[in-house]
C-alpha cells in the first residue's frame, strides 16, 4: 500500500512544491497523478524514495515511513523513471543482475533474467547486448523488468511513457495491467491524459503542489478527463 498523509515539501528557497497531499493506493490499484510540469508529481516520488526530506506529513510504503525507515520502505517499492538510465557498457542481463542484487535478490540465475526480459517483451537478441545500443522503449521495458524482479508490492513510476511511440506506450500499459493483476499498488505520475484514462483505477490532478481533483474509473465513464484536466488547469 502507498500512502501520503498531509505530505508537504517546501524547498530551501521558499517554494512550496507539495501542499498537504493525502492519498492512499491499495494493492491491485493503479493511481495516475496528472499535472503540468512543476505541479509536484516528481517531488511526490522523490519523497517516497527519500531523495528529499518532507517538511511535514508522512509518505508510507507498506506501513514504513519513508523518512524514518527509508531502507525498509525502499525494499517494498520499485522505481521506474521517465528515462530509465542504466549502465551503457553492461549488457541487459548484467544491468538486471546488478540492480536486482541491490534489491537484495541474489538467488537469481541467467534463465530467470531471460524469462523476465521475455515477459516484458524485449527481443531475445537484446538480452546479451550492451544497453548503450538500446532505444528508449527498450530501456523502459528493462526498467520494468528490474521492478518485476525486485518483487516489491509497490511500484512508483515517474512519466514512464513520455517519449515512447504509441506501440511501445501501449505495451508498457499492458505490462502495468499485468502487475496490477499480481496485486501491486501502482502510482504513475504522468501528463499523458489519454494513458491515464486508459490505465488508472483512480486519477488525481495536481496543480502547484495541491491535489485539486480526484476521480475513480467509474466516475470517469461519465466525464471527459481531457476536458476536466483542461478546466482545472485554467482555474487560477
Amino acid at each position, binding site marked *: 500500500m502507498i500512502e501520503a498523509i498531509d505530505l508537504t515539501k517546501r524547498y530551501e528557497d521558499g517554494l512550496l512544491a507539495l501542499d498537504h497531499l493525502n492519498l492512499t493506493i491499495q494493492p491491485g490499484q493503479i493511481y495516475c497523478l496528472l499535472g503540468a510540469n512543476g505541479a509536484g508529481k516528481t517531488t511526490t516520488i*522523490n519523497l517516497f*524514495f*527519500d*531523495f*528529499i526530506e518532507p517538511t511535514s506529513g508522512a509518505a508510507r510504503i507498506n506501513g514504513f515511513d519513508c523518512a524514518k525507515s527509508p*531502507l*525498509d520502505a*525502499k*525494499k517494498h*517499492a*520499485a*522505481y521506474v*523513471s521517465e*528515462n*530509465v*538510465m*542504466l*549502465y*551503457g*557498457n*553492461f549488457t541487459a542481463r*548484467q544491468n538486471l543482475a*546488478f*540492480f536486482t*542484487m*541491490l*534489491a*537484495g535478490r541474489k538467488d537469481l540465475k541467467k534463465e530467470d533474467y531471460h524469462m523476465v526480459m521475455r515477459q516484458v517483451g524485449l527481443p531475445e537478441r537484446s538480452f546479451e547486448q550492451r544497453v548503450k545500443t538500446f532505444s528508449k522503449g527498450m530501456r523502459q521495458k528493462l*526498467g520494468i523488468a*528490474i521492478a518485476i524482479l*525486485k518483487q516489491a508490492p509497490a511500484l512508483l513510476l515517474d512519466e514512464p511513457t513520455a517519449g515512447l511511440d504509441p506501440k511501445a506506450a501501449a505495451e508498457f500499459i499492458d505490462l502495468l495491467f499485468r502487475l496490477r493483476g499480481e496485486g501491486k499498488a501502482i502510482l504513475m505520475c504522468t501528463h499523458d491524459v489519454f494513458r491515464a484514462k486508459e490505465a488508472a483505477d483512480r486519477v488525481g490532478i495536481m496543480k502547484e503542489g495541491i491535489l485539486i481533483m480526484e476521480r475513480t474509473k467509474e466516475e470517469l465513464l461519465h466525464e471527459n478527463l481531457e476536458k476536466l484536466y483542461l478546466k482545472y488547469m485554467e482555474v487560477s
Partner: protein
Amino acid sequence: MIWSIAKKEILENIFSYRFSILTVLLALLMAVAVIVGYGDFLLRLENYEVLRPMPNSPNIIIEPTPMSMFAKGLEANLTRLYEVSILGIEIRQNQQSVNRIFSLFAVPDILFIIKVVLALIAVLFSFDAITHEKEQGTLKLTLSNGIRRSSLVVGKFAGRFVLVFVPFTVLFLLALLTMSLLPSVAVTSSFWWKNLVILLASCVYTLLFTGVGLFVSSIIHRSSTSMVVSLSIWLLFVFIIPNFSTVIAKRLTPVPTSDRIEMETRLNTIQAIYNRIQREKEEPRGMEGVRMIRQLRESTTRITELYRPKMNALMRTTKSLVRISPSGALNVLLTDIANTGLYEEVRAKDAVTQYVERNFNRINELEPGPIELFRYTRASLGEVFSATGYVDVVVILFFATLFIAAAYVRFLIYDPR
C-alpha cells in the same frame, strides 16, 4: 553488498579507454624509469669504482645505492668526491651534477611516477565516481533500492582504488624484479623491505587521492566541474605547495650563498699566505707553513660552523613547510627510505666532517701515521623511521583519513536528484 558495488565499478571501467590509456602510460613510464635509473646507477658505480677510497688515500666518496633507481633524490650530490686539502673539504662535481641540462629535462624516476602520475591517475579515476552516476541517471535508480549510502560510497571507493592500485602494484613488482636481476645491483634483505614500505606508502597515497576525487565528486554535481576542482587540488598538493615551500623557507631562513662562502674561504687563504710571507721575512727559519695550515683550518672551521647550522635550519624549515602537502611528505619519506634524501645528506656530511676532523693532520702531513679508510653505511629503515619518517607517515595518513572521511560524510547527505 560493498564488494558487489566495487565489482560493478571495476567492470564498468576496466574496458574503458580511460583505463587502457592510463595503464599503458603507467607501464611506459615504469619501463623508462627502470632503464634510465639503472643507467644512472651504473654511471655512479663506475665513478665510485675509479675513485673509491684505498688504504692511505684521502679520497672520500660514498658508494651509490641501488635504491637510487627508485628515488634519485640527492644521490648525485651524495656520491660526489670529497677531497681534503689544507683548505678543508672540497667537493668535486661529478658528471651528473655538472651537466645542468639533466636538471632542466629530468627523466622521471619511480618516485616521480608515484608522486605525480599515480596521484593523477587516482584523481582521474575518482573525480566522476558520483557525478557521472547522477548525470546518467543511475544514482536515483541505485538509491531507490534498500541499499545504505555508506555501503554505496565505500563500494565505489574500493572499486576505484583497486582499478588504480592493482595495475600499479603489478608494474611496480615487475620493475622491482627486473632491477633485482640486473647485474651490479646488490640485492639485500634491506632492499626488499624498503621497497615493501615504498609500496605500502604508495597504497596510502593512492587511497588519499582516490579520496580527493570522491570527495570532490560528492560536493559537486557536474563531472566537468568536478574534474577541474580535483585537478586543482592535485596541482596544489603535487606542485604548488612543495615548490613554493622551498621559496618561502629560503625567505624565512636566510643562508649565505655558496659563492659567498667560497669568496670568504679564498679571502682567508690570501690572508693566511700574506701572513706567512710577512712572518717568513721576520723569522726565515720558523714553522710558518704549519702555522698557515692551522690558520686556514681555523678559518674554514669557523665558516663551516657558521654556515652548517643555518643550512640545517633551512632544511628543517623546508621540510616542515613541504609537509603541508601530502605529496611533499611522500617525497621526503621515499627519498629518506631510499637513502637519497635530506636526512641521508645531513648524516653523510656529518660522517665526512667527523672523518676529516680525525684525519686532517695526517692527510696534510702535520702529524705522522696512517690515514683511516673512509667507511660509510647508509641509514637503516628503522633509523629513518625513528628519526624523521614517522612524521611523513603521519602527514600522509592524516590527509588520507581527512579526505576519505569527508567523502563518506558528504555522500550521506548528497542530493541524488
